[in-house]
């Protein structure tokens, strides 16, 4: 025996691994995984799996909704580029836009166009919406209301990945006198409040918390 052996009441020597600790497969208390490691794993999940796991517990729900976590997830998932495809459908007098999300890497790995059609999933569809533009996975949609005297354009944001649609963010009116509306859309990632800026009106603030701070909808009315 080794010279250090002088504790007669100590556990048995020559413990085999099986005696020394519960077998991996035997029912035993689950080893706790530290929160920061859980966050690390969750940040690698795709949006659909991630949102489902909000149902695990209150603390997971809180973590997954946390703006800081959302930001980390956004940066990691930006490596997995998705294309958002817009397609307009005309049914009689009305037009609606359908959005589909398609992972770019499958496009690159597979040039067969027929496979694209079958893989595409329909994420979002809403009647009467026109797409203004998209930026970092968010889409800005425009809704038009018109009567005989004026036209009103209102805006919403949608996130095809989470299938969420914002409330109306603001609107502009145009007289029926031959104006055409052109618009584009961008936003800045930053702090937690959303601001909608119309280039010709006061900024409107949206109170819901997000991870971007300024959204610009650029409108231009031109005479035709």
């Amino acid at each position: 025996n080794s010279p250090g052996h002088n504790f007669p009441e100590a556990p048995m020597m020559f413990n085999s691994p099986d005696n020394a600790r519960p077998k991996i497969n035997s029912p035993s208390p689950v080893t706790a995984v530290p929160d920061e490691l859980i966050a690390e794993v969750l940040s690698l999940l795709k949006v659909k799996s991630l949102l489902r796991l909000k149902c695990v517990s209150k603390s997971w729900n809180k973590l997954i909704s946390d703006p800081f976590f959302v930001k980390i997830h956004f940066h990691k998932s930006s490596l997995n580029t998705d294309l958002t495809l817009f397609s307009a459908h005309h049914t009689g007098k009305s037009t609606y836009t359908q959005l589909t999300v398609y992972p770019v890497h499958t496009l690159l790995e597979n040039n067969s166009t027929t496979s694209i059609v079958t893989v595409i999933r329909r994420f979002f569809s809403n009647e009467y919406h026109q797409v203004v533009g998209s930026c970092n996975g968010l889409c800005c949609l425009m809704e038009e209301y018109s009567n005989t005297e004026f036209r009103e354009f209102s805006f919403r944001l949608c996130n095809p990945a989470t299938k969420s649609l914002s409330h109306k963010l603001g609107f502009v009116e145009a007289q029926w006198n031959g104006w055409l509306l052109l618009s584009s859309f961008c936003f800045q990632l930053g702090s937690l409040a959303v601001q909608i800026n119309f280039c010709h009106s006061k900024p409107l603030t949206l109170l819901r918390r997000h991870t971007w701070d300024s959204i610009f909808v650029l409108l231009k009315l031109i005479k035709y």
Partner: protein
Amino acid sequence: MAEEVSSQMNSLSISETNPSSSATISLVSGDDIVFKVEPTIAKEMETVQSFIDETDGKITTIPLPNISSHDLPYVIEYCEKSIAGKITKEFEAEFVKKLNNEEVKELFLAANYLNIKKLLDFLSQVIADRIANKSVEYVRRYFGIENDFTPEEEAKLREELAWTFTGVDPDDEDEN
């Protein structure tokens, strides 16, 4: 590689040897099995290396009470490949193929304890891939998370997120 130790943890946890650049490092698992590794392997394990550095290389036997003799060989294998620059997608696929989900979790915790960034990142991705299509109940059991929602709260949340519940794998208790 492993040899049984004829003494107790208390007495073997720190044994001084003559400092020598070529001395092997003895890693002692939580169940008292000694694994002798090259110093370069120890360098991959930040926790071990900082322990060696703190003692100016005089101490070459490192107790790792949180790591079992079942997990340690995998960690050493990964570190050996890493030093040789042979971490390939093929190696990684083979490496985890033989591990069940519980073993992956044990290794993940070991990599965290030993502070092996590469192994930790790799296993994070493995776990993410393996739970991606699992049910909420499975994930709770896997991470030992207690469901603290009221039945009403949970039902409401599930209804809001109904579209995320398609394509979930059925739970398979035997897979572990």
